[in-house]
């Protein structure tokens, strides 16, 4: 049986992308600048991560004009939401397995 860590989604497993996806999770869409400020990234760094997430099919980018202002909106795709949920399930399984292992080790070490 393979270890659950092999099921981790490598696109989401990066701390920055994990934060970006977590920020977008309760939202229908968020402005690029909002995500940049919330996750505390530079424009270029966020752009790179957005491209990676977009290529994976996890994120959608929409550009809209509001008067003279161009606004870039980011939103998670249904696949992105599913991937995040799956990722969290795997993390929880790993954490639970770790806790069980620690409990078993503690039980073994306990004096009979």
């Amino acid at each position, binding site marked *: 049986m393979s270890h659950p860590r092999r099921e981790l989604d490598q696109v989401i497993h990066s701390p920055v992308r994990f934060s970006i996806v977590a920020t977008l999770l*309760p939202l229908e869409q968020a402005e690029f600048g909002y995500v940049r400020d919330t996750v505390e990234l530079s424009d270029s760094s966020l752009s790179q991560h957005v491209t990676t997430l977009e290529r994976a099919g996890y994120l959608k980018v929409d550009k809209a004009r509001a008067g003279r202002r161009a606004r870039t909106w980011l939103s998670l795709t249904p696949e992105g939401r599913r991937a995040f949920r799956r990722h969290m399930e795997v993390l929880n399984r790993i954490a639970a397995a770790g806790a069980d292992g620690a409990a078993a080790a503690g039980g073994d070490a306990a004096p009979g």
Partner: protein
Amino acid sequence: MAEEARPLSPGDVARAERLRARAAADGRWYVWYLAAVAVLSAALVVAVEAFFADGFARHLALAGWLLATLPVTWWAERRRVRPRGATRSLTVAAAVWFLGYLLLVGPLVRWQFDTSPAAWSLAAAGMSLPFAAAAALMWRRTR
């Protein structure tokens, strides 16, 4: 780059949860937007059905109502986030309001109570319930 290569730590998961909660809180403005739409929709019905039911006054009331909606629309347009389900909740609530007004409540109240302000106020309050329900739903979602 080091940040990119580093795997997730429990601290990262805790930070992500804080970011998620913050984003949810930042989307709460939509609850107040839906509440404003509920009030404005009720005001429109009472104005054009009870107080300015006939002639040119009706058009003026409608124009006044459209002017009153402008600041609300402008305020909503300036928000940087939209909570999940925002478009769907507003669309469903507006469809229920419109169909209720057009097919059921509007004709019934007009037939039974003509231009009675009390009857139209009650009817308008009832018809704005879909917006209130949508606001309550969004409140729960953004907690």
